[in-house]
Each structure stands twice: as C-alpha cells, then as structure tokens.
C-alpha cells in the first residue's frame, strides 16, 4: 500500500517537474514576448493597480481613492498623449480589507497582471509594507496615497513613493503648533497602533528639540475603554496639553473616549492629535463638550483650498454624482497621474510595447523619481526616498462640535 502511495506521489512530482522543464526554455525571451498586445483597436492596454480597503476596514477611504484613480485613468485615456501613443489604461482593483494578512495575497494578484505598469496603494501603513515587498520583488512602481508611517520610504525600496505627507512631518507640525500656542509641557498618549507610535515618536523628537517638557507617557491598548487611571495620572501631572496619537474610533484607538474621560475627570488641558482623530467619529464619541477645543493636524488640506481643487471637485462630481470627494482622494488622483505621466514618457521614449517589460517598469520608476507636474495638491515631485516634496499639513480645531480648518497652513 505504502509503496503505491510513494509511487503516486513520485509520479506526480515527476509530472510536475516535466511541466516545469518543458516550460523553461530560456526564461527572459519568453517573458518579453509574453505580454500579448490586447487587440482592442490596436491600442496597447496598460493596467494600473489599485490597492485599498474596499469591503472592510477603512472602506470609505478606499472606495473614495478608487474613484479618484478611475477618474485619473479616464482623463488620461481621453488625453491627446494617449491618442498619439495609441495607449489605453485600465484600473485593476484589489481589496486588501485593511488586513495585513491579505496584503501579500492581493499584491500578488496585482503583480500577476501582465500589463501592470504601476500600483496606486495601499491605504493602511501596515498593509502597504508587506504588499510593498511583493511590488519591490516584481520591480513594479508603488505610490501610496494614504500610508503616513515615516519608515516606509526608508526600507531600501526604490520603487516606493507616496503623495501624502508622513507622520514624520505631521508630528513636528503638531509639536510646532502646540509650541506656538504657548504650551510648554505635554502628556503623550498613543493607541498602540503603528500609526500612533510613529506619530508620537515624530512628535516627541521635535517637541524635545523645541525645549518642551514631557510629563506623562502612556500607550493604550486596542479594545480598552476605561482610561480613568490614566486621566488621574494626567491630572496629577498637570500638563499644558495632551497629545493623543491614535484614531478616534472606539473600536480601534478610542480617541473620542479618551477626550470624553479627560473632560469628565476634570482635566482642563486641551487635546492635540493627528489626522487619526480629525473626523466626525471623534466628535460623536467624545461628545460635544468633550471634543471642544481639540486640535488636530492633517496631511493635505481641504480640497477646495488646493491649487487645482476646484477643477478636481467639478470633474469628480460629474463622474460620480452624489459622491463627495474625501480627504485622500486628491492624493490618489495625483498618485495615479504620476504613474500615467511616467508611462507616457517611457512609451514616447521606448515605444508602447516596451513599457510593461521589466526594463520598461524600471524606466517608469526612474521617470517618477524625476517627475514634476502640477497636481491637485500642488506641484508633485519626490525626494530621493520617495516622499512628496510638497507635503501639506493643515491644522484643525473643534469649534461648536465641528472641525474648522485653522488659518495657518504649515508647509
């Protein structure tokens, strides 16, 4: 019996091996001839991958960014350049559900598209990192529109870029704002998320540099809802403000609960935070009184204030009636355009057939390194690590239960 099993297994393996050997006839030649030109009107079709949470996790951000990418692709397909070069783009979407475990899965799915020229994505930093490994190995450009974790651009992956500002900028901006408001001592709380820890680190570095004092340092855990003892500690220490690095939602970072309990526990110092708390959820959960006076920094700015914001909003509204453009949509739009512009450049240089080859993809990465165009968020160009040179951060303040953009905008 056993020998029979062995035989079957051995036969299978031999079969599979034969398959593989027949297949490997010279490797590179086959690969380069492989991307069969899709015969739609003789046009060369290129896929732009989109990665983000589409069904679970931060669905709102993911769906919005997807729409922005689709808009960019549509505009590109209608452009003169596309007509001249006989190129057509399409969007391939991949749903990462904000789940790091699924990151390699969906990234692999995108990489398997033969005509892939670049990926717009992902949203969550924790997803962007493992997915980025796959793109890096495949030599495909990746431009994130929402991953703000500072070290992502410092992992030795030269195919990685992002259009949004990093926490490394957001944290110092928040520190500077707090300093400018006359605060001198801080309590630092993070929510034990990747985002929160990155933000609080960047903040602390700048804050110490400015000469600020740190009185309390704490990390809350996901799923916790009672912060009474921490509030007691903060009250005992009496800082000028409480810096909360985390998200506002009770099911994740619980920033709203924290703000409410600060007020309930008799702490008068205001709360300062990053973009994680800059949403309506935070105000809902903190309650109007709890949220009042909270300050938050946020990468980017209200779209209507952006250089090309009005035109973008108009086009967005026309393409997706009834859908309001969200905070990260403009970044996704610019990310998609960076790839599209680079593809035009490479196609003009080497010919459309060469774009979706390893060499072509390499050329796209080089092109994006040197790109410079006017995007919705302003002039788009990247530094040596892949961070946007034109990182915008806006400060917001809760007034009468609503987030109001603070007048000063820090570059």
């Amino acid at each position, binding site marked *: *019996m*056993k020998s*029979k*099993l062995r035989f*079957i*297994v051995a036969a*299978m393996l031999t*079969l*599979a091996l034969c*398959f*593989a050997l*027949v*297949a*490997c006839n010279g*490797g*590179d030649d*086959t*690969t380069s001839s*492989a991307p*069969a030109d899709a015969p739609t009107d003789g046009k060369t079709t290129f896929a732009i991958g989109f990665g983000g949470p*589409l*069904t*679970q996790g931060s*669905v709102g951000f993911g769906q919005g960014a997807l729409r922005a990418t689709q808009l960019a692709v549509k505009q590109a397909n209608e452009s003169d350049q596309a007509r001249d070069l006989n190129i057509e783009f399409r969007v391939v979407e*991949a*749903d990462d*559900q904000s*789940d*790091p*475990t699924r*990151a*390699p*899965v*969906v990234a*692999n*799915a995108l*990489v*398997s*598209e*033969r005509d892939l020229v670049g990926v717009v994505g992902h949203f969550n930093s*924790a997803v962007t*990192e*493992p997915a980025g*490994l*796959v793109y890096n*190995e495949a030599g495909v450009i990746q431009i994130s529109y929402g991953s703000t*974790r500072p*070290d992502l651009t*410092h*992992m*030795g992956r030269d195919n990685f870029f992002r259009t949004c500002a990093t926490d490394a900028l957001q944290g110092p901006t928040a520190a500077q704002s707090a300093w400018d408001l006359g605060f001198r001592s801080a309590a630092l709380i993070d929510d*034990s*998320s*990747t985002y929160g*820890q*990155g933000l609080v680190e960047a903040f602390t570095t700048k804050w110490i540099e400015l000469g600020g004092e740190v009185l309390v340092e704490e*990390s809350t*855990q996901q799923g916790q809802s009672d912060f009474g003892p921490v509030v007691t500690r903060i009250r005992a220490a009496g800082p000028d403000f409480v810096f909360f690095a985390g998200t506002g939602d009770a099911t994740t970072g619980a920033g709203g609960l924290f703000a409410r309990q600060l007020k309930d526990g008799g702490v008068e110092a205001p709360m300062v935070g990053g973009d994680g708390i800059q949403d309506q959820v935070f105000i809902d959960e903190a309650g109007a009184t709890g949220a009042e006076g909270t300050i938050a920094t946020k990468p980017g700015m209200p779209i209507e204030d952006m250089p090309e914001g009005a035109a973008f909003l108009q086009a967005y509204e026309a393409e997706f009636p009834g859908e309001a453009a969200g905070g990260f949509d403009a970044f996704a739009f610019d990310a998609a355009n960076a790839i599209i512009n680079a593809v035009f450049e490479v196609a003009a240089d080497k010919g459309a057939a060469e774009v979706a080859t390893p060499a072509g993809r390499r050329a796209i990465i080089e092109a994006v390194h040197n790109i410079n165009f006017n995007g919705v968020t302003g002039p788009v160009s990247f530094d040596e690590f892949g961070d946007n040179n034109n990182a915008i951060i806006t400060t917001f303040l809760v007034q009468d239960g609503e987030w109001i953009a603070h007048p000063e905008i820090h570059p």
Partner: protein
Amino acid sequence: MTKKNTSTNTTASMEDAAVKGKGSAAETLFGGKAKPMFTGKLSPVKMALVGLLMVVLLLLPIYLQGMGEVLLLASFVLIGLYILLALGLNIIIGYAGMLDFGRMAFYAVGAYAAMILAIPLANLMGDNLSQFAFPFVLIGSGIVAAFVGYLLSLPVMRLRGDYLAIVTLGFGEIVRITIQNNPFNITNGLLGLPRSGDVLPWPPFFEWLRENVVLVMGNEFYFTVTRNVYWYYMILLVLIIAIIVVRRQDNSRLGRSWAAMREDEVAATAMGVNVTKAKTWAFVLGAFWGGAAGACFGFFQGSVSPEPFTFLNSVIVLAIVVIGGMGSIPGVLLGGVIIMGFPELVRWFAMNHLGGGGGDIGGQVANMRNLLLGLFMVIMMAVRTEGIIPMKPKLHKLYGKGKFGGTDGAADKAAEAAPSSKGGAN
C-alpha cells in the same frame, strides 16, 4: 472440585462467545479477512482518492495562475496555513482532549522566531546558500514554539478543561500584548519584523523558479511561479509532511496514551500512562505545528506584525477543528476548506462575476461568515457533536487470530503465551 467444574463452564462459555463473535457485525465489517484494516495505513480506495486529490492539488495552481484567477489561488495559501494551525490544535483538542483557546500565541511565537532566526542565519550561510535557510528556520521556529508550549504546559497541568480554556485564552492575549509592547526591543512593537533595512532571505529555489519557469499557451494562459504559486506548493509540502508525522504519532504508543487520557484520565493513569508526560507532549507537538505555520506565514508575508494574532483568529482555528471533526485529520482538512474557503469563494465570485456591486456583497459575506460560523458551532454541538467527519476508532489486523481457540488446552497455552509476569508466586 468446584474449580474443575467451573473450569469446563468457562471453556464452554468461551466457545459460545467465539461462535457468537463470528456472526457479529464487527467481525464482518472490520475483523474478517475479507477486508483487512491496518492501523496507520490507508485502504486502496482511499489511496486512490488521495492520489486523485494530489493530482488536482498539484495541477490546480498552474491552471489558476495561468488563467489569471490569482485571488482564488491566493485563498488556497491562507486555507493551507489555517489547516496547518488546525492540525496542531487537533493534537491538543482532538487527540489529547484538552482545550486551547490561544492557538494564535504559538502562531505568533513561530512567526516572530522565524523573523529573528532567518536574518542572522542567512548572513551566516552567505549569499549563495542563504536561500536554503528557510527549512532550518521552519524547524527552528517550530522548536521555539514547542519550547513555549512546554513552558505553558508546566503550570497548567492540573487544570480542568474549562479552566484550561480560559488560561490559554489569557495566554494568547498576553503573548499578543507583550509582542506589541516590544519587550527588550526584541519584537519591534507594532512595526513588526524584520526591521527596516533587513531583508528576509529568499526561500529555496524561488528566485530560480521565478526567473526560469514560464508556461504560455495561447493568449489566455500565462503561468509563472509567482509568490502565491511558490507558497502554495511550499505550504502543501509542509502540510503533507505534517499530516504524515501527526498520523504516525497518533498511531503510536504516545497516541494511545493521548486517547486514553482523553477518554478517562483516572483510568489512564491507573493503567500506567504518565498523564503529565502525555499532556506535555501534546502541548509541545501541537505548539510545534503552530510555530511551523507561523514561520510559513512570516516568510509568505515577508514580515510580521502583531495585528493578525487575535482571539477571533484563535476561535476560527478552533472552529475548523470542532466543525470538521475533533481528532479526525480528514475532518480538519474539510473544516479548513469550508471555514476559510467558503467566504473566499463567495467573495471571489462576487468580485469577479457579479460586476460593479460585487464588492459590497463580498464584504457582507465576510461579515456574515463569523455570524454563520457562530451559529454553525452552536448547531453542530447540538446535532453532531463529533463534527462533519468524526474520528474513527483505530482498527487492527490481528496477528494471532485463531491461534488459541476454545479448546481444552487453551488455558495452558494462554498461560505460556501470556507475557511472563514479573511478579507472582513461583
């Protein structure tokens, strides 16, 4: 006088029993010569089924990858990982009858151990050999997890079933939170491992396979060894090894001591089973596969962070074992395919074949999965406690069948044949 009398009585009754026994259902089903059963070996029919399954499993990724159904292929990788986890848990729950609600603890330990071991080992082996680091890392992380399992088994030895459940649950949470808090800067907190700048070594032959194996047929079919394909085969291989090893351990003296312990701890120990040792081995071997799964997961993903190691995922692994059938390897396989595969299948179908609105349906199904899973667990316990494919009793082909019938001399022969007792008066 009396003795002699009763002696013949006994012989007669034994003959009776023998006659009765020949007609029994068990005889015709299992014990007879017509259909011999072997412990630890499969019948020809089953063998053919396994062979067929193997063919399908080996060819499936080539078809899926070639046709571009990549997401579906990737789902199989996740299913494989969870089955590996469930196999380990099956040792603890199914064989040894103990509860473990903290499966993710070992998964996490294995994944982190793999990350920590891989980079120095790869450096040690040098550029050319570093691709062969993975097998060593796999075994190494299994051993690390097994050691953690051993440490956990020390204090919980005396605990009863439900207390054990809650302690393992607590242990799972402790491991996750501790990893998150980055003790002694080992785990790098939420950023996870490897640290930025470090790169994991490639697994064996992957680089070569990826560059050299290409299969093209017409316009539609285009196959290369992508990460998903590679890990599909790698996890399949680990899974096959795991199944063989676990089966062998179950069909051994150790496996019998687990079963005895599961059935009746007091009787087992009175029959000379060292229950402490059996429990420790169950924890250690169960943890080993948890750790090995963790290492595969870490290498597949390329990095690990604390997020996936939640209580909910421990419950999903538990559900795979319970719904599939505790103590039954086919049950665990089926459970894994159903619980991990079904929602993925529906999501894939919804996304790819239902057009624009498909995404929402996929998400709803994923949410519904946990709801249905819970309901399924409740119903399963009420209707079919032993799972979809229940554990089967181990049947043996008898060596000495018919050697001593109910003949007159049976007693003498039996006395001769019986292993000589150490004790007793001479």
